[in-house]
């Protein structure tokens, strides 16, 4: 499994990496929407965890571009952002996201949302298999 974390904050990317460290998955990183699109195209991740406010290309623009591309549009996206204004959430939902988690958050909340989209397996189990 591959999860792509797109966030301009290294702190958030580290939190996402730590959160999924016990699972048999690789966390890829990108610091803005432009990098996110490039990594998504090169790595074809199983899920993207996406921030909104970022330099170069924001998350909403990246989401729109992702949905325009036949090779990328089926990758599920979970928004992870401090933005919870109702109109903005509704607009983003319309673009096509699987779920939405508002910062600040607990690791467990992120795992729960991700598990609804992809099947996570603990690392030890994967090794034993």
């Amino acid at each position, binding site marked *: 499994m591959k999860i792509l974390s797109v966030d301009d904050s290294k702190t958030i990317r580290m*939190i996402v990496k730590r959160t999924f460290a016990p699972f048999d998955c690789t966390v890829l990183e990108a610091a803005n929407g432009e990098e996110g699109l490039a990594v998504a195209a090169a790595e074809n991740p199983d899920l993207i965890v996406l921030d909104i406010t970022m330099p170069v290309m924001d998350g909403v623009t990246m989401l729109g571009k992702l949905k325009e591309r036949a090779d990328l549009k089926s990758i599920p996206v979970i928004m992870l952002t401090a933005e*919870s204004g*109702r109109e903005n959430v509704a607009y983003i939902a319309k673009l096509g996201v699987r779920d939405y988690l*508002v*910062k600040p958050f607990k690791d467990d909340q992120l795992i729960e949302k991700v598990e609804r989209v992809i099947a996570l397996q603990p690392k030890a189990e994967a090794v034993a298999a």
Partner: protein
Amino acid sequence: MPAVANPEDIAKQFGLESVPASVKRLSQLLNKCDATDTDDFAKLVNADPDLTKRLLCAANPRAECEEDYGITTVEDAIQRCGMSAALLLAMSDPLINAVHKTFSLMLNIDLKNVLPMTLDPFNFTHVVGEVGFSGKATGLVHLRLPNEFIPVLGDRLLGLTPADMQDEATANDVIGELCNMTVGNFKSNLCDAGLTCKLSPPKISRTEEFRLHIVEGGTSQRYGFHSKEARLYADLSVNPFSES
């Protein structure tokens, strides 16, 4: 961003918290700001005991207790302080809640609200995180913390060592993200109240003498927080009529 149907239903579908009562109250107050007289605005303030208390306190800055108040009615307090000041006070709960939520969920630190003047002043080099917002409302939020709190942040948030947090870029990223979450939450509340605005990226600096920047046409308020791990200040300066 354009409006779409049923935003509250969509938020529920994602399990987002419902819009807090304090934000609904702020929205109601903003709707009464266009009125030619302040009666309806004052009625709304009067219906909220906490807001009434804060406004009367602000209108009587020299009084040491309520018995000393020269201004005793909401109507007179609005005349004295203005609607902007009342709106600023109505924004207090959303900002205070955002600070509590960020420190509790991300750092497992339960902060207590304290009167800013009861905290020892930061007359030493300390960290300042600044996040601005602009749109229908324009403002600045400053979160200020003592340097000795920085290793605690790194440890609680990412399991980093004090040595890791001596790297300024790492420390700034951690502090910046905490500021971003706090003010991002607050800004979302402002949007839900009708004050559509956008955030600017966080700026982190270190200073010995902090001077509050008051945005043009705005008013300001300071909040103090304390826990066994640390103490911090949040300063809010806002002009709720920047597009009027």
